[in-house]
């Protein structure tokens, strides 16, 4: 099995059962995993911030940093590699928040809502997710069978 690392503010595509895509250190960032079981095309995006309007210049240099520029590119790339829209299985992880009763610095929540909004507008359904809370997470997509595992602190692993 060949493991491909998806960095922070990064996106990677792989094709075929020999690959898995992994992203570490999801705090308030969101990991988006998409997978087509027929063509075995998989993609993963690790974005940091909800909207490119925060820094448009940066969004041009690295669109994967933001939800509204990174997610459309992720889909475009998997389609280019042979994935079909009606077969895509979408899964999300991350979006943790520090403890904030005032709801002022809810970057994880804003990141999550940015993804939800985009999927809703494009009539795409999220198959499953592990979002929110106060834990850092690692996300792994296995292209052989589309299994997505989330590693939590203390070694706990959940399949979503």
């Amino acid at each position, binding site marked *: 099995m060949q493991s491909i690392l998806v960095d922070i503010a990064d996106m990677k595509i792989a094709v075929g059962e020999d690959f898995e895509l992994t992203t*570490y250190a999801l705090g308030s960032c969101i990991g988006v995993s998409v997978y087509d079981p027929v063509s075995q095309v998989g993609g993963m995006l690790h974005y940091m911030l909800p909207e490119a309007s925060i820094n448009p210049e940066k969004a041009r240099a690295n669109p994967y940093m933001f939800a509204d520029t990174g997610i459309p590119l992720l889909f475009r790339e998997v389609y280019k590699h042979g994935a079909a829209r009606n077969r895509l299985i979408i899964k999300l992880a991350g979006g943790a928040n520090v403890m904030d009763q005032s709801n002022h610095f809810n970057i994880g929540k804003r990141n999550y809502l940015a993804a939800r909004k985009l999927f809703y507008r494009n009539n795409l359904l999220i198959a499953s997710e592990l979002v929110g809370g106060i834990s850092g997470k690692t996300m792994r997509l296995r292209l052989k069978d589309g299994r997505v595992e989330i590693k939590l602190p203390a070694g706990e692993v959940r399949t979503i």
Partner: protein
Amino acid sequence: MISVEELKRIVQEIPPLPDIALRLIKMCQDASVAPRDIVEVIKHDPSITVKVLRLCNSTFYGLPRRITSLQEAMVYVGTDALVNFVLAGCLSTIYQKENRGYGLEEGQLWRHAVGCAICSQQVALKVDESLAGAAFTAGLLHDIGKIVMSSFVADEFLMLLDLVEREGISFLEGESRLLGYTHAEAGAEIAENWSLPEELVEAIRYHHEPQKAESFKKTVYCAYLGNILCVSLGIGVGHDGLATRFDPAITESLGLDPDNLLEMAVAIHDQFKKAEGLLAIP
């Protein structure tokens, strides 16, 4: 369970900070000290000189040409950065060990220290540029208490995690309730034993509870927000995760709004990408 007295005894056993780091930190606080005096102190330590030059030539600064002497380094990167490089060189080995209790693999606590240093510095650059050097140093040192607490937190870890989840409290509050002592208190005592300036001791002690700071508030707030940004961006995050409290009054008192913090995240990502030189210090 280990007693507070026992924990405090272990704090006393932490080896002293190398003399060169301490001398430089103190010299930086003295406005009458000239840059050449700082070069004079560093140049007598060949291993530190080599590390400093290597860091200056790393991608962190992206300097136009190769730096070959401390005098040149001083001109290009400035006094604060030079001193921070020396401090980083002295601290990296202390931080590098596995940090079992906080669920951090070898090197991850150092990664978090460097990340928080960069985050705290970015906050300072937005708020008050004159604090940038102190904020960076405070970020490097803020979790130094974890090296003492790690094995004891590991022993009580499941109880601690359960308490944090069940009661909805922060990890620091969990440490306080369960062990009667926190990594912030341990860190402040280590810093006092090292005779570090009060500004840094305050920042370490209150990096989770900035409201309690009575002096050097702006530096404390920079370290506090730096840590919030650092864990939010997932840099060197352990079992304690994001279980720390955000207080909007602190950002307001610095004249910042939450969107400013998001803007900073972009700069932090770029700076951290360039920080491999700091992360790879042997």
